[in-house]
């Protein structure tokens, strides 16, 4: 099952905090897809999550200042 989280309009540090909180609702091995429109978050949130042991399955730019990040919970 894939869970989606829309973080458009959110900036650091809420982008990481809200992603981390959402991951608490996700089962290990499941995927969370997060949508960002804040460029620094697209680099920093995946890096921080990798540091926490999660796997980044993909980062895709889907529009002008719009990105989709796929995270698999560890």
């Amino acid at each position, binding site marked *: 099952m894939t869970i989606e989280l829309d973080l458009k309009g959110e900036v*650091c540090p809420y982008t990481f905090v809200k992603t981390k909180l959402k991951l608490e609702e996700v089962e290990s091995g499941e995927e969370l897809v997060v949508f960002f429109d*804040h*460029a620094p978050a697209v680099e*920093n949130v995946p890096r921080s999550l990798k*540091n926490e042991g999660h796997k980044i399955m993909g980062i895709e730019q889907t529009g002008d200042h719009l990105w989709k990040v796929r995270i698999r919970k560890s």
Partner: protein
Amino acid sequence: MKLGILLTTSPENENTNTVIEISKAARDEGHEVSIFLMYDGVYNVNNKEFAGLVDKGVEIAICAFNAEQRKVAKVEGILFGSQYDHACIASEVDRFISFG
């Protein structure tokens, strides 16, 4: 020992020189030093002497959001990170000093 430093003031402030001298002294004594820059502190990456601390083995991370707001361009060797990096520094060091 691991030393963490938070700097939130711009390079005109005397804090910059204090942080440079503390960092150099700590490195000369063999201590690890990690610095996090936020608010106007992000301007310090454009200070040659401050950015030169990287060559002395000091780890410098800055809030990329604050840098973007202030149009501060990326500098090689400095991590344009987030408050997550600030939290990691604060949790890993033995002593943490804040200059604001």
